[in-house]
């Protein structure tokens, strides 16, 4: 059953790739631009941030929840890492300064997520409402901390510039996404924690009767989601050479779309990291295809809308068979 679902997702991806090849513009040497190595790795780099966020979103949605705050958390993290890097460092060495800034920003994301989880599991408020509130609140925090101004990094030869130069390299960004995807794939499919996540989403009442630690699992799931959004914020800061409190708007929706296109059931219980990776790739290839074809970015949004609905409709059909 799961194999079938994954292979269907892969077929959809293959279809999009074939379409992209077919309508790709041709370079002067006769090769298709879509297939050029540089373009393919560009796609991977472009999907990496949403890809990383959607790994955590997969766990959240599998428990039957939602996390709307990840875009704001990314903004908070980009701001914090830039602030950390531009602040005077008493100690010696660039490496320690960088590590401090990266870890601080990432952990702040994790903390924001843990707050979400505590409110959802402890106060038993609906995830949509809790994360809607923190989406607003965390955005406010990021803007307040930065006085709503971008913090430029990456110019000159200071630690911030070295950070940006290191963490905006294509291979490193893609490697981070690949490594995290592998970790979360294993976490979900091979560990006790992963099975508890799926069990809670499948039937929370039954999970209670089986004595599962529902609260703890939920808090950890939201903390992981925040942690990943925080790390994505670090990569965002390096890539854009600035800490931007207005970054990441609507990223949560792209992440949710990737998860849902990947076949994870919005009500929870059913889904996989593999599916989410495929869903992220479909979105990425689609965007790239439309941009290579010089399609208006507004039209691009409309096409994406149709794809999301089609993907979910096809999955519903399969479920009814």
């Amino acid at each position, binding site marked *: *059953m799961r194999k079938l679902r994954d292979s269907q997702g892969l077929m959809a991806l293959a279809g999009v790739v074939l379409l992209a090849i077919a309508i790709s513009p041709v370079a002067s040497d006769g090769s298709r631009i879509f297939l050029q190595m540089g373009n393919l790795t560009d796609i991977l780099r472009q999907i990496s941030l949403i890809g990383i966020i959607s790994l955590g979103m997969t766990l959240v949605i599998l428990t039957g929840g939602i996390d709307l705050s990840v875009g704001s958390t990314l903004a908070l993290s980009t701001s914090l890492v830039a602030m950390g890097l531009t602040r005077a460092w008493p100690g010696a060495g660039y490496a320690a300064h960088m590590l401090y800034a990266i870890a601080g920003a990432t952990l702040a994301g994790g903390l924001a997520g843990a707050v979400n989880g505590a409110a959802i599991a402890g106060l038993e408020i609906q995830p949509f409402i809790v994360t809607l509130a923190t989406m607003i609140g965390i955005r406010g925090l990021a803007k307040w901390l930065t006085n709503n101004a971008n913090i430029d990094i990456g110019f000159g030869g200071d630690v911030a510039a070295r950070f940006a130069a290191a963490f905006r390299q294509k291979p490193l960004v893609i490697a981070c996404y690949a490594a995290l995807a592998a970790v979360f794939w294993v976490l979900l499919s*091979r*560990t*006790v*924690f992963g*099975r*508890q996540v*799926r*069990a809670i989403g*499948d*039937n929370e*009442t*039954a*999970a*209670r*009767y*089986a*004595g*599962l*630690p529902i609260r703890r699992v939920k808090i950890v799931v939201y903390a992981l989601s925040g942690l990943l959004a925080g790390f994505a914020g670090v990569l965002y800061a390096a890539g854009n050479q600035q800490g931007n409190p207005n970054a990441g708007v609507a990223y949560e929706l792209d992440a949710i779309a990737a998860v849902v296109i990947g076949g994870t059931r919005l009500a929870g*219980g*059913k889904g996989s990291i593999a599916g989410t990776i495929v869903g992220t790739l479909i979105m990425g290839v689609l965007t790239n295809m439309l941009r290579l074809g010089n399609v208006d970015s507004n039209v691009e949004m409309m096409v994406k809308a149709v794809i999301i609905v089609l993907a979910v409709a096809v999955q519903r059909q399969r479920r009814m068979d």
Partner: protein
Amino acid sequence: MSDLLRAEGIGKRYGGVHALRGASLALAAGEAHALVGENGAGKSTLAKILAGSVRPDAGRILIDGKAAPIRNPLEAQRQGIGIIYQELDLFPHLTIGENMVIGNLSFREAAWVDFRKVDAFCRPFLERVGLRRGPREMVAELPIGQAQLVALARALSMRARAILMDEPTSSLGEDAAERLFGTIRELKQGGVSIVYVSHKMDEIFRVCDRATVLRDGETVGTVEVPTTTPGALVRMMVGGADELRADWQSARAAVDNRRADYQSAPLLSVRGLTTRKLRDVSFELGAGEVLGIAGLVGAGRSELGAALFGMDRATGGEIRLRGVPVEVRSPAAAMRHGIGLLPEDRKLQGLMMDMSVLENGAMASLPRMSRLGFLSTERERAALLPLYRQLALRCASFSAPVGWLSGGNQQKALLGRWLLVNPDVLFLDDPARGIDVGAKQDVYRMIAELAAAGKGVMLASSELPELLRCADRILVLADGRAAATYTAAEATPERIMAAATGARS
């Protein structure tokens, strides 16, 4: 005899199960008529058919001697039949007045709501049922007894001449119940007939003029209440006790043969256990004993399991395991103490339907099935496959979603979960409910094997034959209290039903 309402030969099947076959009822004008029977005898189904919310497969309904097909609740309303469900069907966040006029054919509704008109319409009916509340108050703010009066006022405002009440006192305190009886008497004097669905003998003998007894979906007979006794009614409800007895006595032989000496030191001892739904329940359970838990719907069978398993907070009393007092605050704590619970509703409370048979089996033993947080599929297979073989669980693949299995095999998958946990005390809440005959035999065999292995088993069941064939002793619950305890030798269907209905003679 001029009957207000007559139902003849009513039949209803759900899948292959007959809920009703040839049920009949004759209701005279101005009488209170009890509809009684064991759990699953078909009382509620018959009431729903008369109220138009369930359509019968066979039979006919006559009103004032004329055939009157009742295909939906609106037609029932037109015919003057009202119903008050056990779980009231009111809208809690609407006002009393709004609740009374919604769908009410006697109230002419304009597109624009005229609240003064609604008030004027409702007041006389609220007065008639004795509810001192304004029509603009919210139903959510009323205590349950008053909300029930709103439902009653609504039925009257729909010009109901016959009102069906399904277990009307099940959620009422004694005061509220007392007031309800008074209201019923007044309604009778006003010519309204009441069908009183209940199995509480004291209420039936206080309120009702006649009683119709259902058994296995059939009407056994109708009696005049003043000229009968609770014992006689119970005998009618239990029915052909002799054939029943032959059936379970042969099956019991095997049970009696094991005879462990469990009386010596109780494994589990419960004193004065009190929760939201239980009052002062005490009993003991020995190692190797099967203690049956009998009682009508709502008597507290499942609630006893919930209290022992840490799902319901105990407000009083003491639970001792091997003489040591224990606090059970959560299912995880219960499991640590060696108490397990197979819940009543395997779909809602038991299984993760999209997860595999093996995953479901391992669900309550994940730490044991893993190393450093990583699950070992080999370990799961090695631990669960022998148990599933023992239970004779049949499935195409143990990796297939458990939702694909038949009801009996689903129940075995869930039972396997608890065999793997292997608790000292296992509370089985209606383990044979809704499963086929073969699977039932496998479950009964498993119960006997657990007892033979020195476990304490509690078997809650709505089926008397099941308790009589499996249990060493039977604890009868009524209204959240321990009404009686019988040993296998003493227990008879009549005695158990008498204790459960409060008709001890």
